[in-house]
Each structure stands twice: as C-alpha cells, then as structure tokens.
C-alpha cells in the first residue's frame, strides 16, 4: 500500500492564501470602522483574522432570510428572483450580460441518472429559479469568462438544506458530468461549510467546487469553478468557465471575484428580508456600496477551502472527489439555463 499525503493543488493553495491575505489586511482595518451591524461579511466577522472586533457581540451572524420574510407563493418567488438586484459588476469589473440573459424561472437543471444535466420543470419543493448569464469578454489574449448565476427560492429552509445535500451528493455520485451537448466537466473537488463551523463563510451554508471543463473536440481542459450559498430558503449559485490565456494568479483572481459575487447576491437576499426601516437606516449608516466592499473582505477569507483540494496523492489519487453538483450550467448551446439543482432528497436515485 502506498502512503497517503495531503496534497494541496497549487491552484487552490494560491486561492486560499490569496484569500487569507485579503482577510488579514482587511479584517482589523475594517473591523474598527465597522458599523454595529450584525453582518458577518462586513469586516470579516467570521474571518479568522483574530481581530477582537471580528467577534464582538452582535456581529458574526450569517446572511440569512427568515422564512416569514421569504416569498411564499410561486408568483411571489418569481417576482423575488426577478427583482433581486444582481449586477454584472458584482462578479468583477468588465462583466456584461450575455444573450440570452435570463432563463425561464419555472424550470431548472437536474442531474439525471446518467450524470447528464437536463432541464426540467420545478418540483413542488421549489418555488422559482432564475439564472442570469454574464460574460467577461476576451481581451489581451485572455479568453472570455462565462458566469451563470442562479437564484432559487425553495419552499422552506429545510428544502433548501436538502438541496445543498443533493448538490454534495451529486458531486460524489457523478465524478464526470455532461453540461450540454458540447461540454463536460471533470476532476472536481467539493466541500460545503456551514457558517457554524467558523470556516470564514458568510452565508448559512457555502459549497464550493473547483475543477475543469472540456469542450468536445478540444483537448485543452479549462478551469471550471462552482459556488453555492444558502441564505434561509434561498440558494445562490454561480458557475464560472474560464477561457485560456491567464496565468495561475490571474485565474485565481477571477475565481475569487466570482466567489465574492455570489456573496454579494447573498447579501442582497439577506437585505431583502429587512424591514424598510431597517434597510433605510442601514443605507444611511453605511451606504450600499461600502457594505458590499466590506463583504468582499469577508468572502475573501475563504480559507476553509483548503481541504477542498487536499486530495490524496499516493493511495487514493482522489484529489478530486469528482463531479460537479447541480449548478448553473448555461452552455453556449443553450437550453438548461442553469440553476441550483433543488430536489427533495427522498427523490434521489
């Protein structure tokens, strides 16, 4: 038998360290200026920065949405996902809307028994699911980055938790998945971190996968990343498919930006649950944009992700537990606009 060795892939280690550095720089600094908000992400509440302010009473709660403030009907849910401010520049400078921009909120993508993503009508446990498609156009020899952002409203927080479990299960069940007629993903590693475990996430639950995708006919595998957060009964997911031509450091920057973008959307979901008065007060106190910038710091501290890439060298060679999970895949070819796959667990194969 051969030995087991934790092996951090160079990419995620860099990602990790970048995140850590960001947190260290921002944590204490923003901590002192932070308004007395409950928000975890602002100033890096759960960040392992060690700054006293990071753990002061009244901070350190995750982004969430109380069920009684969440959409209750399909109509409300559709309105919610449509009205939620999801801006291209949440994901980094230079992003634009892709055409077609939005999918039909009455359907979503499901990973079938053969590990192929299929677009299907929503089950009863899901009220609405909308995917928006963005692109960072190619420039200076750097390929385009395609991002698909999916916001899904589940019938309850429990159903959303089940959806996160299904996502994790899919990654284990299907190490290789077909996104579309022309694209597939492979070599993914995945992990999910609940907020309660102090691993620097900013929402109640935070799932991440890093891997690569292949376009049929091309031998060159490219970087594929996927992020998904749960905010009460709502899940926010984003896939990123990176074009070639970037250095490792540049790829890490792009990846981190997408991860932050998901947190910004989560912050919007959280904000939607506040009363008007709360929201006003908050806006006056700190302004919208600074809040989000603060959130960046929190999200940057995505250190928990290390273990993600600690696969095995020797014995297992399983660095990638394999598979992506139900996520927003908006293949160039069209249909399944992507969505955070959401199904009750019981329905699993």
């Amino acid at each position, binding site marked *: *038998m051969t*030995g*087991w*060795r*934790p092996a*951090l892939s160079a990419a995620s280690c860099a990602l*990790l*360290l970048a995140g*850590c550095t960001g947190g260290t720089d921002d944590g204490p600094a923003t901590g002192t200026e932070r308004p007395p908000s409950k928000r975890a992400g602002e100033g890096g509440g759960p960040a*392992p*920065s*060690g700054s006293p302010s990071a*753990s002061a009473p009244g901070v350190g709660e995750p982004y969430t949405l109380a069920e009684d403030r969440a959409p209750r009907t399909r109509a409300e849910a559709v309105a919610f996902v449509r009205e939620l401010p999801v801006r291209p520049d949440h994901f980094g400078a230079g992003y634009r809307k892709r055409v077609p921009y939005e999918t039909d909120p009455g359907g979503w993508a499901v990973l079938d028994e053969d590990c192929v993503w299929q677009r299907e009508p929503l089950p009863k446990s899901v009220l609405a699911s909308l995917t928006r498609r963005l692109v960072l156009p190619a420039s200076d020899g750097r390929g385009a980055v395609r991002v698909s952002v999916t916001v899904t409203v589940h019938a309850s927080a*429990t159903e959303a*938790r*089940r959806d*996160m*479990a*299904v996502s*994790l*299960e899919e990654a*284990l*069940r299907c*190490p290789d998945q077909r996104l579309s007629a022309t694209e597939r993903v492979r070599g993914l*590693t*995945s*992990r*999910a*971190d*609940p907020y*309660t*475990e*102090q*691993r620097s996430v900013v929402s109640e639950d935070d799932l991440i996968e890093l891997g690569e995708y292949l376009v049929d006919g091309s031998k060159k595998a490219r970087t594929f990343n996927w992020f998904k957060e749960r905010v009460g009964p709502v899940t926010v997911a984003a896939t990123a498919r990176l074009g070639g031509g970037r250095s490792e450091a540049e790829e890490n920057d792009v990846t981190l930006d997408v991860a932050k973008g998901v947190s910004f959307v989560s912050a919007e979901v959280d904000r939607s649950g506040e009363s008007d008065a709360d929201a006003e007060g908050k806006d006056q106190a700190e302004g919208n944009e600074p809040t989000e910038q603060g959130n960046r710091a929190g999200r940057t501290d995505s*250190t*928990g*992700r*290390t*273990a993600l890439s*600690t*696969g*095995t*060298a*020797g*014995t*297992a*060679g*399983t660095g*990638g*537990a*394999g598979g992506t999970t139900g996520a927003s895949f908006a293949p160039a070819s069209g249909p399944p606009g992507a969505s955070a796959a959401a199904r009750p*667990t*019981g329905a*699993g194969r």
Partner: protein
Amino acid sequence: MSEPLESSDPSRIAGFRLLRRLGAGGMGVVYLGRSDSGGLAAVKVIRAESAAEEGFRARFAREAELARRVDGPWVVPVLDSDAEAREPWLATSFVPGPSIAEAVAAHGALPARAVRVLGGLLAAALESVHEAGLVHRDVKPGNVLLALDGPRLIDFGIARDADDTALTASGLVVGTPGFLAPEQARGEPASSASDVFALGCVLAHALTGRPPFGTGAPDALLYRTVHDEPALDAVDDDLRPVVARCLAKDPAARPTTGEVRDLLAEDVPGSAADWLPDPVARMIAARSAESLALPDIEPTAVSGPAAEDDTGPRPGRRRLLLAGGALLLAAGGTGAAVWARGDGGKDDAGGERPVHVLGVHTTRTGDDARFGRVCERAAALAIAEHNADRRRAYDLKVRVVDDRGEAEAAREAARSLTADRDVVAVLGPVGEIPMRTASVVYGEAGLTHVSSTTGQNDYFVLSPKSSFQTASPHLALGGYIGLHAQVTKRLGRIGVVIDRAGRTPVQDQGSLLVAQWRDTLGGEVVPRVVAEGTDDGRAAVRSLLADGVDSFAYLGPLDATVRAARDLAEAGFTGPRWMSHQLYGSDFPRRAGAAGEGWYAVTAAVDAAAMDTKPAKDFTRAWRDRYGTAPEPYAAEAYDTVRMLLAEFARTVPAGARGRPARGALATRLAKAEYKGIGRTYAFGQYHGYDASSRGWADATYVHEVRDGRFRQLGTLSGLERAGRGEQGGD
C-alpha cells in the same frame, strides 16, 4: 490528640526528631516531629511490609512529588519525603487544630457564615490540589483541620492507609462512604468533580452536624449516594443551592472548584479569628498552645542518647508535655495562627528549580468532553512523570483552561494561556471549532500548541508556525475504511451515508471514502448525503438497502449512527458496517446494543491496553496506577503528544540557564521532530498535520470492532493485511 512514642518507634527520621505518635493505621504510623529548624511536622512512615507491594515505591515517589507541587495557603504543605528508605516516609507541616469532624462532634453544627468561609477556602484548596494534577479522593470532615486563619486540607492522595478503603459487597472502595461521589461508589475513577461532591458533603455535614446521606453500613451509604437525594432540609437557605449543585449525581453538572470559590468566598478571614464560633476557636487555641509547648520543652526532656533508650525518657516526657500543655492552655493561644502560616512558608529543596507551565486547552462540555478529559489526564500523567525525575533541570506544572467547545470561549482561553508568560507550550484545543479560533491566538502569540484530537487540515492557513496536530486527518481516515475493506477482501458495493449533522469532519471522511473506494480500489459506491436538521437519514438507509448494497458506512453523529445500526439490524443486514472514526470510544456499543455488534471504527487511536509492546504496557500500567482504569480512547495519543512536546521543549532550554527559552524556538524544533510513541511514530508534514505519508501509516491505523458491547482492537491495517495473506497478524 496524640500518644507518646512506643519502644519500637524510631527517635529520628532524616531531619525530623520524632516527638509523639499522632496515629497509626494499616500501612504505618504518623508521628509528630520537629525539624532541625524548629518547625513541627507530621511524619508519615510506611511499614516495610506495605512498601514491599509491587509498584508501591514508584507510586509513593510520584505522589509525593506531585504533592510537593501543591501550592496553596489552605493545603498542608509537604516538607520532605523519601520513597527509597527502607520504610518510606513523608513529612508535612503539622497543623494543631481540630478537624471539622472533631469540632462538629464537640460543639455541634457550624454557623452558616463559618461554613461559607470554609467552603470558599476549601474550594481554593482543592483547586490547588487539582492544579498539581492530583485528585484528593478522600475529602471528608476528618481531613479538614481548622486553624484560626482558615481551614487546612490534609492527606491528599498520598500513600493512603488501608483504613481509608472500605470493603463492600461490591468490592473495595477507596475513600470514605458517605462522602464519596456516586461515580466513586460505582467503582469508577475519581475526578476533580468527585472532590467537589465530597466538598458538598463536608459543607452539609458542617452545616447540619450530619452527613447528607446519613450514617450506617458502607453498602447502604453507597447505595444512598448513588440513588437518593441528599438530606439538605436543614441546610441554610442561602447555601443550599451551592451545596445541592455540588451534590449533583452527574459529575458534569457540578460546579468547578473555581465556581464554588467564587460563589462562596465573600469573606476571607483576617487575622482576627472571628470566622469560627467561640467554642471552636478556643478549641483551636488550646490545641495550638499544646503544640507550641513542644519545642520549648522537648529539648530538655529528650537530651542526648537517652532518646534512644527504650524506657527511660518516656514517662518523664509525658509528664512534661502534659504539664506544659496545661500551662499554655490556660494562657490561650493567639499566636497560633501566625505559627501555622509561618511554617507553611517553608519550602522544599525542589522549589529552587525553575518552574515552567504546560497549558492544557480542554473542553469539558458537550460531545468533545470525553476527548478533553483524556487530554487533561494524559497531561497530568506526563507532567507527574517529569517531576518525579530527580535529575530534572526544571519543574513543570499544568494549567488547564476550558473552552466549553465554543469559538469565543476558545479564543479567550487561548488568550489567557498566551498572556501567562510561564506557559511554554499547550496541549489542545480539543475540538475543531475551538481550534479554529484559538489557533489564531496562539499563532499571533507564537505559543506552540498541539492538538491531538482534531483532524481538519487547514489550520496552517490561520496559524502557519505555531499550530500542530498529531491526530490523523479526517480525510485520510475516511479513505482507510476502503483499505480495511480491501485487505479483508470485502470490497463490494458500499452504501455511504454522509449525515451533515456530523459536520464537515464526516464530509471529509465520506468524500475520500467514496473516491477511494470507487476510483482507486475499483469497488462500487452509492453515496447519500443527508441534510442537517432533517430526519432524512433513515430514508437514506432504506434506499441504500433497496439498492442492494453489501456493505455500509454511516458517517454521522452518534444518535443517527445508533439509529442506522438499529434499522440495519432490523432489516437483517449483516455485511460490513463502518462508523465515523470519531465515534470510536463513544457510547455507541451501549446505545446500539445488539444492533451495534460487528460495526467497525477505523482510526489512528490505539488501545494501548491491547498491545504487547513495552511502551504500551508501561503506559497502561502508569495510567492504571494513577487513574484506576485502563487508558481511555485517545489517551495514548494525548500522552505521546505531551511527551513529544516536552522532549522538544527540553531541547530549547539552554543548559544551566535559569531563564525561559524564547517561545518561538519550540515550534521551529517541533516542525522537524520525530517522536516514537506508543501506537505510532509522530512527525509533522508540510502543514504541521500528522505526517501520514511516512512509511508507517498502515502500521499506525487501527481497526476496532464492536464486540460484546465494547470496542475491541483487531489490529493495524498492515497487521490485518498480513493476516489476510496468511501471515502473522495482529499488531
């Protein structure tokens, strides 16, 4: 109060001239002695026959050494000892006051205020005993002496007389029935919480004049202790809540000594002896006076070789003593308290060594408390062994902090240890969440800490220099389940449930197990992930059964795993079944009952008692000697971890220097260190985790099977592999 010496008694023990007999028991005699510098001492001399018992001298030496480390104003200090003498002996300061038992017998219950003071100071006394790594085990009214400035706790755990054990129908119980904690009554090991229980009994006794579980035959007392509520009706209303909490059946529900002290210590007696009722104060004064008389009179009474004479001096001495005592008794004894304190200040030679402190960052509540307990015990044992070495260059003490398993409390706990400049290294934290916050604090302070019970492997990001782990990563251990199946040729179609209620450690295990089983070993896997906060685990088990899996891994918390065991048993499933490695040593065998039989735990935790090697046997014996039980799961790893830390720390201490080495030096050394422990060899990888890549990992991973209601060690993975090939198996 005392008897004259008998003809067979020695006149001198080392530096103490013996004056009187204070008492005699099964193991030896206690004398009143006077040191060359004039102070009075109680000298306990063990009969040669008693000392002949195997291991007695080593234990005596260790306990005496530990007792010398006990440092507090309310405990009677150990002055000197010799375990190597033909008749081993130990000398403590002599406190002339009556015991609580005598005071209550003579004058009845004590007033509430006196008991409040008494309780606070006794709690402080116990705290210093526990800090030295001892458990008193026999706190009772007879072992608390009263002085004018406060109580004195005596007889902490050293060379207990056979008289102090009670033979009952169920066996031998160490301690005094009526003041023993329920766990001691059941024959389980005593802990610091057991002393708190006994303290509650002492306070109730002092307040009411009666022990809270009554009097009578030992068996009846023990039964009542375990099953009945204490009689606290007559206890003062203000004190009843504290006393009742001390007397909680569940050790975990009792307050710590620190809490008791804080709850009670509002009054500390000053120089005025006003905390005790007058009759008791007079009693103390009289006793003190009687003792004070001794040094004045004795030199004239016992002069020269006449002391060695069998008969000559005795009558005369007794007469003189009686006369002197009577004189001084009449005068009263206001100076007694000063005397008692002054003598307590006399230190032993060992005190000249520098003292360094090992922090133990523990968790005493929640699921991780069982890990915390063994870490505390392991540290105390390793420290005691260090301090028992006569050639040691410095003494070590333990300082324990509890984080209750909470992130913020863990940060605070780490801050308190890093702020203490005497702390040179830390064992812990115990749990993953405390590790996450505390490692940052240790890292910033540059204080080296090693956790022997955490298995997430990204802490180096938070604390790249100072944080270390000796436990195997969860990821690796999950993968080893597949290897266990492979070496035992059972690599079929496995159903793997990852129950997220078990948090990310089970995710780590499950992810690697699935990948390993399928992609590396070539088996079939059906994974299921169960959402936290749902009851979907049972449905997952049912669906896997319907799927026709022939083996099973349920990776989740204890409750859910027990339920899965029951459901599988009910379905008649008999294929191999694995639990999360974290449940090794848990209550699973008892909770699951027959349904749990045959389940496996694959873990790096070794059962030292099941091993034949000399280090394992020595360790097991030392643990039994100290704690009266075989080493609990994770004890060997915690012990090895402390020993490794201490060994490397020793190398950072400059020879001959009395100062403290720079904190950072230890981490630098440790990163490169290798240590051969009981169950495996420890070294750290690039990220300061247990280096599982070293060749011996298959020799360092143990398979335990639930059999006959307990975990049984089957052997190492490599041992099982050899057995599978028909070679010699086992470990």
